């Protein structure tokens, strides 16, 4: 059977890249800049793409590298900003309160864990591919995702138990 051209999936991947960029940069303009820089690098490095391999993994990896380089250049310009990413807030205003709590908890995680969790939620990648995207050994990636998930779970449990106490407190 003829394999479809990867080009057909490109647009879909760019939409995923933009979502990842929104979470990475926490800012709509920076996210679009990051997408553009990623595409520019991809065009220049197209020979490093091996046809038959996962285009998405290749693109995400370029984006992750680009993001790391940009961060280094800016010396973590906005590192102090602890609030939720604006676009994420805007987009999720209508969502269930629990989803917003989850996003807030996600935002409290160390960047490395947050990126690993977002990547897996967005991409359904295999661990080895996700580790490659983030440029870390497989074991490191597995540890980040496991610790991040557990931290999220505990945070959400904490929120629930607080809510439960308040309800209980009215008795």
């Amino acid at each position, binding site marked *: 059977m003829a394999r479809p051209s*990867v080009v057909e999936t490109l647009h879909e991947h760019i939409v995923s890249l933009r*979502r990842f960029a929104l979470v990475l940069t926490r800012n709509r303009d920076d996210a*679009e800049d990051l997408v553009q820089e990623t595409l520019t690098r991809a065009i220049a490095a*197209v020979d490093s793409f091996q046809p038959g391999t996962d285009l998405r993994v290749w693109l995400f990896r370029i984006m992750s590298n680009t993001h790391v380089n940009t961060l280094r250049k800016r010396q973590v310009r906005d590192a102090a900003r602890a609030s939720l990413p604006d676009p994420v807030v805007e987009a999720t205003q209508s969502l269930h309160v629990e989803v917003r709590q989850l996003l807030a908890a996600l935002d409290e995680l160390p960047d490395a864990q947050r990126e690993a969790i977002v990547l897996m939620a967005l991409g359904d990648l295999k661990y080895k591919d996700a580790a490659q995207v983030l440029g870390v050994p497989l074991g490191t990636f597995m540890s980040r995702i*496991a610790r991040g998930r557990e931290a999220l779970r505990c945070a959400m449990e904490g929120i629930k138990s607080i809510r439960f106490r308040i309800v209980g407190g009215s008795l």
Partner: protein
Amino acid sequence: MKSALSETDLAAYIDGELSVEQAVCLEALLAGDPEARSRLDAMTGQKQMLRAALLTLPADEGAPRTLELEHRLASRLRQREQVSRGDWMVGDWLRRAAAAVLLVAAGWGGHMTYADLSHPLPEYVAEAAGAHLVFADNPLRPADVDPTQPLQMATWLSSRLGKAITVPSLEPLNITFVSARLLGTKEGPLAQVVYEDQNRHRMTLSIAPHGYQGNTAILHAERDGINLAYWSDPELSYVLAARTTATQIEAIAAEIMTAGEDAAE
């Protein structure tokens, strides 16, 4: 009691990283570990919730410049795929290429329309007669014509086909000329040019004169895993065959067609 199941085990289960055996084993452990089960359920729910939230991020539309970059990347990726390795025919390519040529030959010459190519008739008797006409009174190839020299082959094949043909260079696509040969079909002589990519996967270009108006656009067919692109100019019909994708075969065909048009100008 401390659970025997680590966070890494649970995460790997959620992310589909476990083999079937490992997953069955983990599920058996979970059955006796309600605390781990509830942690797993919470984390699974959170992954799904997060995915749903991320998918609501408005990300479908970017800046015009992003779209322009997307188009440029798409075009570069297409070129990259054209010259890609790894999915052209290997091993029994000769048998399959021969089958592809027979398929093509059955519809060759203007008696049948191109659409009939998808239902060729195995007219082996007619083929045998055609081969006889082409080769019985002529050598398979004169001793002084080197099949690995594209210019010599083009000259000799042109004389046998009765029409001037060129052997297109596909070097810009990293596809090299291997050799050419003359085949006899029931419709008469047919020139077959063999190319290969950097991984030695083969592609053939068949060229034959036709008796109809010609000038058809590139059409595509697939048979037995071989992708075929075929088209014609006013005098000759062309068929490109390789075990590759429809996109690649059509892109290479377009390159050959364009090169032919440029040469004719």
